[in-house]
């Protein structure tokens, strides 16, 4: 019988040959890990390394000189200003939207949630275009605003607005699933104990969502400082005036000032790495306090 030949052949086989039914052979594992490692190395790590290698290709002094250059400083200042307006604005929006959506039942809720996600599915260039069509000199409101001396397109207000557009979903989409999961029970308890609406929000709701809120703000900030396409369309690339850091990188690069371009880029890369580190820490430390922390 066949089983006997199997028995004969396995009699000498060492026990180590046995492996769990739900895993691959060690050789297969090693090959798969190696392929993943090589792919990620080529696609992720090398570019990151290249940024710093190129940035320091001229040594520290050139690196610092590129960062101290007045246009670079102006770009940094503008980037910080834009983020300082866009992030708090979307923070307030995210909290308000999450409160309305997660704590109440009303018609059209899922449509509202879909609309909040809309900026993620629109190309940044298209959002920039839409703002030009509204605020440009031939746009819907542009001429009328011009008459009052208000410039939006090709000026800082336009940059702020498109940045708000592009980063609008981040805080809301962190908070909504978490607050839906938590329900309204604790708030109802606080109200029944005599707390006012604001007090309930401050002392009951906010502590429950603080880590998810921070997480959303972190991602929102990273995108706000790094946004390129939308800002590029609306800014008009005026050096020292409407240049954010990513736009400044482009200008330097197109002028073949590679070392300077990579020096400014390295600051953005450091920002990205800090964001990743903080994000990983939050996921690791407070995973339970964040519902939909992954994947966007």
């Amino acid at each position, binding site marked *: 019988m066949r089983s006997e030949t199997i028995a004969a052949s396995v009699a000498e086989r060492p026990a180590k040959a046995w492996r769990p*039914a*739900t895993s*691959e052979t060690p050789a297969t594992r090693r090959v*798969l*890990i190696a392929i*993943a*490692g090589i792919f*990620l190395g080529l*696609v*992720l790590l*090398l570019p990151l390394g*290249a*940024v710093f290698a190129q940035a320091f290709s001229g040594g520290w002094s050139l690196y610092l000189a590129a960062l101290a250059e007045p246009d670079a400083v102006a770009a940094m200042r503008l980037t910080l200003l834009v983020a300082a307006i866009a992030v708090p604005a979307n923070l307030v*929006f995210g909290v*308000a*939207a999450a*409160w*309305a959506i997660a*704590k*109440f*039942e*009303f018609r059209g809720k899922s449509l*509202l949630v879909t*609309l*909040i996600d809309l900026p993620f599915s*629109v*190309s*940044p*260039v*298209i959002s920039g*275009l*839409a703002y030009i*069509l*509204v605020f440009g000199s*031939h*746009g*819907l409101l542009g001429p009328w605003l011009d008459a009052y001396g208000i410039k939006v397109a090709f000026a800082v207000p336009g940059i702020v607005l498109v940045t708000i557009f592009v980063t609008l979903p981040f805080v809301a989409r962190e908070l909504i699933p978490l607050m839906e999961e938590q329900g309204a029970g604790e708030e*109802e308890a606080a*109200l029944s104990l005599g707390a006012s*609406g604001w007090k309930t*929000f401050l002392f009951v709701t906010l502590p429950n969502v603080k880590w998810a809120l921070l997480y959303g703000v972190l991602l929102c900030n*990273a*995108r706000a400082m*790094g946004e*390129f*396409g939308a800002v*590029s*369309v609306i800014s008009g690339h005026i050096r020292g005036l409407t240049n954010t850091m*990513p736009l400044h*990188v*482009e200008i330097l*690069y197109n002028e073949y000032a*590679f070392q300077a371009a990579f020096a400014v*880029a390295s600051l953005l890369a450091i920002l*990205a790495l800090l964001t*990743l*580190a903080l*994000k*990983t820490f939050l996921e690791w430390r407070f995973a339970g306090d964040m519902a939909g922390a992954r*994947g966007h």
Partner: protein
Amino acid sequence: MTSARLAFKQPSILPGFGLSFGFTLAYLGLIVLFPLAVLILKSAGLGWTEFWRLALDPRTVAALRLSFGASAIAAAINLVFGLLIAWVLVRYRFVGRRLIDAMIDLPFALPTAVAGIALTAIYAPNGWVGQFFAPLGIKIAYTPLGAVVALVFVSLPFVVRTVEPVLAEIDREREEAAATLGASRLLTVWRVVLPSLVPALLTGFTLALARSIGEYGSVIFIAGNIPYVSEIAPLLIVIRLEEFDYPAATAIAAMMLGISFVLLLTINLIGAWSRRRFGHAV
């Protein structure tokens, strides 16, 4: 009046609905819906023949073809490698696993312009990687291939991040069941594990595709931007804008939005279909 309000919103003792809902709607309306509505109105205002004349301009068609073609190739590459990476991260324990897991989100955090110039530096004929391909006659940077490389970078996290949680929650008992029934490991993975990942893979693929189609910053540095060859649709929008040719820019944008809409609809239909069929374990 009261009954109409009750029908819209279920009663609750929590305060602040009016304020938060009103603010949400106003904010969303002003920031997102109004500009997009203007865009749609403008493209509709072009008229049927004018719209199609602009949309079917050869250069536009070439740009759209490159955007969608390169995006599809990049998403397909990430489908394969994303699954592999998710598998390795979820199933294996090895030194550096946490670091790799954290690095996966780099494309979300790194500004696309930075990614663009860095990838160009590496894949240019004299770059770290490009120098090995140049003698073979393969040019990566400044060709459509470069666009694919950039799009692989920006859409890398989607498949990994949609597959990872599903793979982590897969019931190992199903694989054990397949093994007790005599299926080899390869057959078990192919016939038992992969089918349960299909909805997540499709979602990840579609998200990667949608993201790639809209991508601008990273591609323009590496693709070379030669009209009819390596010029993507978002770039053509920017070029038309710089020429003050707003109708053409609007028509291209409308084409891209229309296709994106179809994609989103498809995601939702796939999700709904698989949930109906296999229960809620998508």
